């Protein structure tokens, strides 16, 4: 082993298979690192005490103990240590468990030299970003609540998860319906992380045309394509030292998914038109309102990318499953908006509270914000009453009972009636039929068809758009 200037720069490698130990050590040494190698947990801990290394590569399964125990011991002695866990077991549960316990990164065998070196470089860069002990993330505990109102158990679980993942480099995958606060969650992960002073760059993959997305993410050089009139720094480079938030990540086309995967594997970017890759240090947080596994099954999302991104999942609960949060959020919003608009509102009356608890809120907090903005702008207070609410909101609550003798629509008999139609057309027929039978009540229709109300709302929206488009043509 080479002698290094400072022992803390030496990389401690704890790996029990001698050939793999040799392989990893030689890759690190060729890249100029000093390496101390151990083959057992006991030997590894002893070397740790001697060297106090900043970066440790740790195999998860050792002959005389688990990597988890070794890591906990090391982090207790020296909390800033960056532990890169290596294992042959690619289970997501295991990865989440290790990340929660404070691992910096998780490498699954087999990995190549490039991946190994990228992980070590990331870990060393993260050391430079580490905050002084006085403002360690734990000290800032109340701040999550400041942006996220709500004390329901579902939200408490979200808060806990944000706090526990923020410290690591782990990629966070946020799922949840539209309007549930996925971007707020991503910002909180950034603010609670050691990279809080670095940039937070958000990019909505669904809002950018496919052919521009690549240069938005990775940048481009002047003249690399028509319209590229100057060099452009992409989001990945802009987020160097900070967090890159990829919203609606499932909208990304397959070609770009391949490039994103490459970026995640190597931590390098190659701007459009550039020939040489460039290193960046970015933590990725991504979000989608779709079911990512379904996208994988349908072949629209790369499976390997999914597993690389889906290290720590956070599910943002829909508003209707957050109990009393809807009232707490509504009252806070009314107070804030009333002040902005100069109207004297004091809160919601009992009737409105009861109604709000019952509503399905397909658009979640965003819908609640729009409804209340509408109320506060158009009315003067002092309390929000049912009469002030937009009429379409009331019909969501299933208030009006279905007319008892609704005209029976002509219903097709037998499957022959469906012949020649697409599955999408048949789906629409079935849903519209059910809506008719339930007096256009979306919640009742949703119950009958055993789907969420928001699914039906989404479909109604899509049909409305498609019909409008068809008429316009």
């Amino acid at each position: 082993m080479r002698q290094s200037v400072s022992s803390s720069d030496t990389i401690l490698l704890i790996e029990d298979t001698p050939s793999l130990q040799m392989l990893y050590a030689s890759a690190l040494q060729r890249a100029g690192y000093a390496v101390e190698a151990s083959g057992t947990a006991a030997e590894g801990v002893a070397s740790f005490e001697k060297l106090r290394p900043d970066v440790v590569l740790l195999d998860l399964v050792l002959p005389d103990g688990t990597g988890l125990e070794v890591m906990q011991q090391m982090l207790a002695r020296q909390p800033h240590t960056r532990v890169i866990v290596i294992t042959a077991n690619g289970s997501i549960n295991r990865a989440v468990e290790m990340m929660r316990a404070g691992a910096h990164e998780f490498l699954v065998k087999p990995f190549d030299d490039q991946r190994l070196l990228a992980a070590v470089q990331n870990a060393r860069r993260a050391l430079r970003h580490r905050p002084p002990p006085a403002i360690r993330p734990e000290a800032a505990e109340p701040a999550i609540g400041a942006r996220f109102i709500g004390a329901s158990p579902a939200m408490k679980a979200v808060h806990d998860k944000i706090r526990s993942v923020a410290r690591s480099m782990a990629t966070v995958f946020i799922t949840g319906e539209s309007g549930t606060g996925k971007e707020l969650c991503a910002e909180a992960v950034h603010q609670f992380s050691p990279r809080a002073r670095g940039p937070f760059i958000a990019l909505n993959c669904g809002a950018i045309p496919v052919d521009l997305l690549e240069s938005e993410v990775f940048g481009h050089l002047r003249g690399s394509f028509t319209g590229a009139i100057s060099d452009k720094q992409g989001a990945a480079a802009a987020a160097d030292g900070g967090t890159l938030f990829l919203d609606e990540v499932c909208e990304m086309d397959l070609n770009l998914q391949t490039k994103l995967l490459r970026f995640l594997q190597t931590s390098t970017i190659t701007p459009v038109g550039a020939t040489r890759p460039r290193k960046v240090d970015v933590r990725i947080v991504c979000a989608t309102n779709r079911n990512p596994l379904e996208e994988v099954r349908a072949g629209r999302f790369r499976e390997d990318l999914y597993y690389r991104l889906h290290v720590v999942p956070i599910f943002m609960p829909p508003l209707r499953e957050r109990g009393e949060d809807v009232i707490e959020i509504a009252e806070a919003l009314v107070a804030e908006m009333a002040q902005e608009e100069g109207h004297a509102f004091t809160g919601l009356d009992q009737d409105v509270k009861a109604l709000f608890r019952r509503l399905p809120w397909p658009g979640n907090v965003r819908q609640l914000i729009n409804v209340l903005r509408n109320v506060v702008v158009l009315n003067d207070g002092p309390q929000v009453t049912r009469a002030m609410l937009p009429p379409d909101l009331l019909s969501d609550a299933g208030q009006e009972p279905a007319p008892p003798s609704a005209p029976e629509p002509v219903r097709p008999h037998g499957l022959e009636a469906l012949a020649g139609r697409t599955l999408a057309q048949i789906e629409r027929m079935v849903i519209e039929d059910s809506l008719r039978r339930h007096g256009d009540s979306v919640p009742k229709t949703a119950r009958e068809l055993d789907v969420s109300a928001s699914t039906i709302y989404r479909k109604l929206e899509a049909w409305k758009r498609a019909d409008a488009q068809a008429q316009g043509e």
Partner: protein
Amino acid sequence: MNIQVDGAIDREVLNRLLTVGDAALSKRLHDQIIADLKRLKDTLEPGSSACAIAAHEVKGLAATIGASRLAGMAETLQGCIENGKPDAALQARVNTEISAVLELLSAGKDFRARS
């Protein structure tokens, strides 16, 4: 049981591993991989308490050297043992597969030709 040697190792993966350093390193690494696999083969004898850990180790090593069939079998075996259902037949197949990989490695002088 016949030892099916063909396809036990992806030569491209192994070559890449063995040609990154100088010839001396390449030889040491090659010999160490053989030594590791022999040790693991002995550890995987039925009834050994260290079987699950050994299967896990086999999986990591096999995946790294391009022996993906062996890696897959070892992973399944590890799962069986951890779930309290040791599978003697599978264990025998893992042992046979290790032999196949070892045979290829021992014969594979050409692996080092490029270094």
